């Protein structure tokens, strides 16, 4: 069936080429049937790639190790759900999933816009199919997911232990959806420039897709942070890793665009800025994909491999050059229709917000690509670490959170100064009360964290005031009870109030980041069973070691042959708080040269952290047991010498027993961080707010407004 999969790739390439040619011919000649045929090429591409994905999924689920991708990333003992998700754990499979998701989202976008902007959509179709052709070409020429080996190996290598985590099952498709959704506004932006149609219509058409891209990218970034915190053994959720940054960059420019597009919708301003943001966001999404796959920068997230770097560089260069050319050559069509009425206006606040967001993007872009720039200029690779990023991003983040509280309080066009002064009272009072409460509670010594708490309180106070006043106004107009008024207010103003909820989520998230990073207590030390250590206000006692052996033939085997850990008793002021069981898993390396026992333990060890998570704080623990003591090493050496491969597990079981008997010291990493859970709660609130903002109004409301609005509104407008 690999032949069917590869045939689908070739067919996909043909469909893309046909669709590009047909769309361009149709729009240039005015023959709509060819424009429609080009649009249907996207649907056909989605169908063909769905078949290809199904072929590969069936191979994974059916343990068909003739497929190289399956043999490299799965095994008979990999649990079923992880097998199904393993398709995107390899370079080849993830390229296929990327192209497939792009074709699905593009199909949806073109279906929803099939009756509008036929000329813009035709050019956009050609761009989308161009992207499709690029990614399919990468698979055909460099990274074929349907490459096979004959005879097929009896067993696969298995899934990377680091990926055996629930969030990692959905993190890639969500992140890829974010990346691929970024290409839709990019395609329509290029289409609008080529068709010279740069008014309100194209912005209206792509707004939801830009929002969806932002939502999926944000969710993908959050899931990655959760994986980092819960699975990697360093105790952090964000390390300014190159691949993490690469996903954040288009999210930042996308955030800027979602705000500034409102200015263009209302005032016909910032057209050059908006189209540039759209093009930049799409290009940054492609650059992010390039970073993960080219191996050009080191990252735990990267697939490695340098073979894909050159095609990506060519694509990115073409995108940048083409974008600049189009914007410059169409600048006469991108002139603003109005000017800023007042500095005291929501437009001004959004402009300030945009400058901060783009500034953040630039700082992170510079820091991420600095190793490449340094190497190109000086011949030596240098890099910047978290302290550098924190130094520049934290102040900008403070300004951003503060602005998220100012914007809701200011009117569009021009705010009345007296009203603005009055409207700031409650939010400022929230900020001041927060500051006094924190200082009174002895929370000091971290001015930036305190500033963030106050800015967040200001933002929350501002949004809370908006909800209160909006519901009060609704009650006055409609006479509804308060809860119903609140619901009706949000339903009738989804964009505004959904956006406010997003602001609340971001404020909560930043509070969690500030608290957990500024006030954490860390203790890295070596303990023997029975010994205790203090971390912050908590005492952690190493009660006893643990050891678990799971042979490969055991149904419970999930990859680790041996797991060594500890039982820890956590107390505070003498009261029991939690019992934690961190461990480290030792995996098969598959290298027969390491010996019958060595090969069972020689794979990359993976830390399985243990934590006690509450809203107020998190106690996080990781262990690094010492498997290199002379006694344990002797077991491995003797086992390698005397045991055949099928009996190596006997020595591993003996090693586990000796570990429990001798109870050696182990290295522990103990961290107590306040309010970590606020980060995840904030993320969920952001997602909820975004869904409210993006959700379409019910059809009957749209029909009622559409059918009756024009005559009624003309009469109503004429009355004034």
């Amino acid at each position: 069936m690999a032949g069917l999969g590869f045939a689908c790739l070739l067919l996909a390439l043909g469909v893309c080429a046909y669709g590009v040619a047909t769309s361009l011919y149709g729009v240039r000649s005015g023959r709509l049937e060819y424009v429609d045929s080009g649009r249907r090429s996207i649907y056909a591409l989605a169908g063909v790639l769905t078949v290809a994905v199904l072929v590969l999924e069936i191979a994974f689920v059916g343990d068909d190790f003739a497929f190289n991708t399956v043999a490299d990333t799965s095994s008979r003992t990999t649990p079923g759900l992880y097998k199904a998700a393993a398709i995107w754990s390899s370079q080849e499979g993830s390229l296929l999933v990327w192209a497939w998701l792009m074709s699905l989202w593009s199909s949806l976008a073109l279906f929803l816009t099939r009756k509008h902007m036929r000329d813009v959509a035709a050019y956009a179709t050609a761009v989308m199919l161009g992207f499709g052709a690029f990614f399919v070409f990468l698979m055909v020429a460099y990274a074929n997911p349907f490459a096979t080996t004959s005879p097929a190996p009896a067993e696969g290598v298995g899934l990377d232990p680091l990926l055996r985590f629930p969030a990692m099952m959905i993190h890639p498709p969500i992140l890829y959806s974010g990346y691929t959704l970024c290409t839709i506004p990019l395609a329509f932006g290029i289409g609008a420039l080529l068709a010279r149609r740069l008014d309100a219509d194209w912005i209206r058409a792509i707004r939801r897709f830009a929002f969806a891209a932002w939502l999926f990218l944000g969710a993908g970034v959050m899931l990655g942070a959760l994986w980092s915190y819960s699975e990697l053994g360093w105790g952090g959720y964000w390390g300014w890793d190159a691949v993490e940054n690469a996903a954040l960059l288009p999210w930042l420019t996308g955030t800027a665009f979602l705000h500034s597009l409102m200015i263009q919708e209302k005032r016909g301003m910032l057209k050059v800025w908006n189209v540039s943001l759209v093009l930049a966001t799409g290009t940054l999404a492609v650059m992010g994909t390039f970073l993960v796959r080219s191996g050009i920068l080191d990252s735990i997230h990267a697939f490695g491999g340098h073979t894909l770097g050159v095609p990506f560089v060519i694509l990115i260069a073409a995108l940048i050059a083409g974008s600049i050319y189009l914007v410059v050559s169409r600048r006469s069509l991108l002139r603003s229709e109005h000017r800023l009425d007042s500095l005291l206006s929501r437009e001004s606040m959004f402009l300030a917000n945009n400058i901060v967001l783009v500034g953040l993007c630039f700082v992170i872009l510079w820091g991420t690509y600095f190793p490449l720039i340094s190497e190109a200029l000086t011949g030596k690779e240098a890099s910047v670490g978290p302290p550098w990023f924190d130094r520049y991003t934290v102040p900008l983040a403070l300004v951003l959170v503060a602005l998220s509280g100012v914007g809701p309080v200011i009117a569009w066009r021009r705010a009345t100064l007296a009203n603005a002064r009055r409207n700031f009272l409650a939010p400022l009072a929230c900020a001041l009360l927060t500051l006094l409460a924190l200082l009174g509670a002895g929370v000091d010594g971290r001015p930036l964290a305190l500033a963030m708490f106050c800015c967040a309180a200001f933002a929350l106070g501002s949004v809370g005031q908006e909800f209160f006043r909006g519901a009060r106004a609704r009650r006055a107009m409609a006479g509804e009870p308060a809860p119903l008024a609140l619901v009706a207010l949000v339903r009738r103003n989804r964009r505004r109030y959904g956006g406010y909820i997003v602001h609340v989520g971001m404020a909560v998230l930043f509070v969690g980041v500030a608290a957990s990073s500024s006030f954490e207590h860390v203790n890295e030390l070596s303990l023997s069973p029975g010994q205790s250590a203090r971390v912050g206000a908590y005492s952690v006692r190493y009660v006893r070691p643990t050891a678990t052996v799971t042979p490969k033939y055991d149904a419970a085997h999930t990859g680790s042959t041996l797991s060594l850990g500890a039982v820890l008793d956590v107390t505070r002021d003498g009261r029991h708080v939690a019992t934690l069981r961190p461990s480290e898993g030792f995996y098969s390396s598959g290298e027969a040269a390491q010996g019958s026992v060595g090969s069972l333990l020689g794979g990359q060890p993976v830390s399985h952290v243990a934590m006690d998570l509450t809203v107020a704080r998190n106690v996080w623990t990781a262990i690094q047991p010492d498997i290199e003591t002379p006694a344990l090493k002797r077991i491995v050496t003797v086992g390698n010498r005397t045991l055949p491969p099928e009996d190596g597990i006997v020595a591993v079981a003996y090693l586990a027993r000796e570990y429990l008997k001798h109870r050696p010291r182990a290295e522990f990493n103990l961290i107590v961080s306040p309010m970590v859970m606020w980060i995840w709660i904030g993320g969920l609130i952001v997602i909820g707010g975004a869904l409210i903002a993006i959700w379409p109004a019910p059809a009957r409301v749209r029909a009622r407004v559409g059918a009756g609005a024009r005559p009624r509104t003309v009469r109503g407008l004429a009355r004034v």
Partner: protein
Amino acid sequence: MAVLVVILTLLVLAAVLAVISAPIRAARARREAAGGAAPAGGDAEEALAARTLEDLEAAREAKYREIRDAELDYRTGKLSREDYGAIDAELRAEAIEILDRLERLKPTDA
């Protein structure tokens, strides 16, 4: 297995061809039904009118939203009565201009 792969591939190919050629076949059938008239090269004026209509409808929706937002800003205390009155008048005048342009494009609508 090889035969099955070939059959499945041909089926996928047939489905693709059917999907992408449908609009072209339909257009050809319409032309033949209309007596084999020469293929329309596209009416540039009609296309321009359709584009203008779409742009104006988008502008109209945006303007209605602005009017609602201004009212909400006033009712939530961000605008004084005087400022709201001035802004509302401006917005309604802009909306009337858009509606007038729409009416001129579609003269048969009531």
